[in-house]
């Protein structure tokens, strides 16, 4: 049992942590919720009458188009990451243990290197007189440089490049846990490769898929510097809208409402992830 003498240490630690989280996480988020229902004010940013104008503005055709386009690019990014990452994680889990460590290390290196610099490196490759166009022209595949930079595709490539490891790592961990016996059992029960994949492998790896989707989809809506560097002014993300509303247009209620859309999306994805994990837990028991 803990004696009375031990309590000060525990109390001090708990006050520190709770204080930090309440002051720098909970309070700021409540402020954003509050800001989203207030009225825009050119001097003090926000003023009273409470209203839902900011949320109504989200459905303004002009912004709705930007949001849907952003959502489309984020969804495409997630899809491409999943299509590349799923077989990749599968193949990775089959490699020998020693080599796996090195390969995982190589996967984390980009995560530790400056994402801004890596996005810029893509610009060197995709620019009109960049490496890719020069290479394609020198082998005679094209006569004139392609417009690769400042397109929707460039933004998606940039996002995939930055976020792919975040899709692979959770997928890799579910493939690692995938029990070989289950696959053998499925085979013994007469299931073919395709049937095993659909009925055994896909459901068992679903939590990893959802975790990966969560880790890719949300940043893919927020990383405003990717369109800034690669996308030009027509391929904006929700993150660009939030940034413009807060830092340039000074329309805080609208920026806050847009940010809440992101938070709600996150909550929804987290809920789906929990649900999928619980289902597997029950089936396994």
């Amino acid at each position, binding site marked *: 049992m*803990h004696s009375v*003498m*031990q309590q000060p*240490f*525990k109390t001090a*630690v708990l006050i*520190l*942590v*709770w204080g*930090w*989280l309440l002051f*720098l*996480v*909970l309070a*700021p*988020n409540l*402020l*954003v919720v509050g*800001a989203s229902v207030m009225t825009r004010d050119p001097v003090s*940013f926000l003023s009273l009458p409470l209203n839902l104008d900011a949320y109504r503005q989200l459905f303004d055709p002009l912004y709705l188009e930007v949001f849907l386009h952003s959502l489309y690019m984020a969804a495409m990014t997630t899809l491409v990451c999943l299509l590349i990452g799923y*077989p*990749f994680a599968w193949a990775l889990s*089959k*490699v020998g243990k020693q080599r796996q460590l090195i*390969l995982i290390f*190589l996967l984390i*290196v980009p995560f*530790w*290197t*400056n*994402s*801004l*610099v*890596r*996005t*810029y*490196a893509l610009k*060197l*490759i995709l*620019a009109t*007189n960049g*490496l890719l166009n*020069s290479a394609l022209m020198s082998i005679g595949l094209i006569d004139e440089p392609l417009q690769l930079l400042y397109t929707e595709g460039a933004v998606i490539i940039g996002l995939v*490049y930055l976020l792919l490891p975040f899709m692979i790592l959770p997928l890799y961990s579910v493939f690692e846990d995938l029990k070989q016996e289950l696959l053998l059992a499925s085979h013994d029960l007469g299931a073919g490769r395709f049937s095993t994949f659909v009925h055994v492998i896909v459901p068992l790896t679903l939590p990893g898929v959802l975790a990966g989707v969560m880790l890719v989809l949300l*940043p893919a*809506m*927020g*990383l*405003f510097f990717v369109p*800034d*560097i690669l996308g030009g002014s027509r391929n904006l993300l929700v*993150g660009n809208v939030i*940034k413009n509303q*807060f*830092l340039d247009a000074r329309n805080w209620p609208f920026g*806050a409402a847009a*940010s809440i859309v*992101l*938070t709600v999306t*996150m909550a929804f994805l987290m809920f789906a992830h929990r649900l999928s994990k619980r289902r597997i837990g029950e089936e396994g028991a």
Partner: protein
Amino acid sequence: MTRWLPRTYLTLVYLLLYVPIVVLVVFSFNDSRTGYAWGGLSLRWYESLFNNRAMVNAMWNSLWLALSAATVSTVIGALTALALHRYRFRGKKLLNGMLFVVMMSPEIVLAISLLALFLLVGLQLGYVSLLLAHVTFCLPFVVITVMARLSGFDESLPEAARDLGASDFTMTRTVLIPVIMPALLAGWLLGFTLSLDDVVVSTFVSGPSYEILPLRIYSMVRVGLKPEVNALGTLLLVFSLIMLMLSQWILIRSKR
């Protein structure tokens, strides 16, 4: 067929991940001003980088910020992990949940909420606001790293220390801290790197009084190509590689 196909695939994806990085490094030694064509080997971009006073200044600011943010978040994160591991208290699940949410939330959501807070309490945007923000987003990563270390740890050691009459504080200092030391170092290195790389949060909570490197790079790369950025990127790359290898080395060595 089943053997070479996965291997080719793995190699291909790694190639795609690393080509831009290699291009960046090679072009940082390019003498040509246009930035695309090869003009021979040169160190001129490194030279102009170090002759740029504003750049060097931003570099020092960033290093100092990363150093302090990593240190503060390691201290608070380690204490949090210890509390979560050892104590029962009301709201423990909530605390865990909040840390998880911080880790998962899009950076931009955290960024604007902190900006709103700082403006409300009248904190001038600069070093202090950056520090508070960076510690906040580093915190969950440190907690997770230390928790992982604690969960594989033999519970009888602290029990024994307590039986021998050590107070909670003494036991933490003499038994637990040495055990979690590798995780502390790894968490510190991770925090340092996260802080050094952050663009999104810093864009919102920094002020003109304290210019940091990522924001300086950001303003440079938005318009056209800047060969200095290749040189700077290469330096940052080497730096993070050293940090990453250090942290992996610490973690692997501690497992033996």
